[in-house]
């Protein structure tokens, strides 16, 4: 692909970088404990946790780096970090 003049780019290309591959641990969300407070969505440094149709939350595992902030901060202790099988 031809270079952009002046080393510029339009939005969107960062999504080519699938940071989910960085993970060692994976956050697993427990719907039973979820109070839909949305704190995990706010605190994720990737911004990859989104609301499902039922207003529960789900991370986009393509990008989730497994940092564990969501699990640490969830007030209902509804997120557990599990070692991923690769």
């Amino acid at each position, binding site marked *: 692909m031809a*270079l952009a*003049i*002046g*080393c*510029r*780019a*339009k939005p969107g290309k960062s999504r080519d970088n699938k940071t989910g591959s960085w993970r060692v641990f994976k956050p697993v969300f427990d719907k039973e404990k979820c109070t839909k407070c949305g704190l995990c969505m706010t605190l994720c440094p990737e911004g990859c946790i989104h609301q499902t149709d039922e207003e529960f939350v789900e991370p986009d595992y393509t990008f989730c780096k497994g940092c564990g902030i969501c699990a640490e901060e969830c007030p209902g202790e509804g997120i557990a970090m599990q070692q991923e099988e690769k």
Partner: protein
Amino acid sequence: MLEITEGSHAVAEAVRLCRPQVVSAYPITPQTHIVEALADMVANCQLDADYITVENELSALSACVGASAAGSRVYSATTSQGLALMFEVCFNAAGMRLPIVMTIANRALGAPLSIWNDQQDSISLRDSGWLQFYAEDNQEATDLHFIAYKVCEDHSVLLPAMVCFDGFILSHVYEPVDMLSQEDVDRYLPPFTPYQRLDAADPISFGMYATPDYYHEFRYEIDNAAKRAKEAIKKAGKEFNTLFGRDYSAMVEGYRLEDAETAIVAMGSICGTIKDSIDEMRAEGKKVGLLKIRVFRPFPSEEIAQALSKVKRVAVLDKDISLGAKGAVAIEVRDALYGSATPVKGYVLGLGGRDVRKKDIKEIVSLVEKGVGDQFFGLRRELL
């Protein structure tokens, strides 16, 4: 309209006519009269620009980077220490492909501190990617600003440009200048149409970083753009000639060169002195000519080789010195003539405002006839 005007004021007027939206410059001798004149114009509603009184030159050019990226035609001016202070911004602006025009009122670089003229400052930035124009007199200094904006805003170029004119020698001297009218300039230079700009309606990231996988090609592209400027200069110069009767389409200009045996190569105001000296030498029967370099970047290699193809010897004058090597212009001219047997000698002179007189030129011609050169000319031996 023909006016007797100070060089700085002529430049300021030319800039005013180009309708920059943002002016951002830091005062430094001998450019001060330009920025003062522009401030005066803004204060009297003659120039509708945002005039940013920045706190240093690095900020001056940085503000131009921002304003240009946001979609405005911008202007700055500096010299010597100020240009050196904005060294990294110069490389940055060229790499970001922003069409900024900046006047350089050429002045020597310290240490030792000097406020007087030589061309070390702009020549030292020849690697930066900026186009570089050198004015022989205040008419050229004025006109080259119109040319510079036209060329650098061309979407096939998109590089910043320096218009260089010798500090004090031109900037503070009154000469007759035929100044274009606002109508003239509006006809020649349309409003700035950025190739891209910072715009929430169409977001773009400017100035990303390039890994080794990409950097090499980005630099190649900038080099290509600088080379494409040759065509853009030709086009812009031709159009200027058609409209206004002054031809800037050539990057080099010969004076009495056609049948010359000795050619002197030089840039800037020194060319005026050289022309007068040549007239006197010609009257005495010496076949001397001048090749004036008006555009130093992109470097007119082929044009120089072509123009000097028939002379017997070449004397290149440098108002600069690449310390530890030679005068920068001489090195590049010699490179342009590589493969030809024509001897090329370089002379470093006029540093820090040391006056160059007609008899100095004659002496240099004698030296090059004897094959003596590649030296500092005119040293005060009693000091050494």
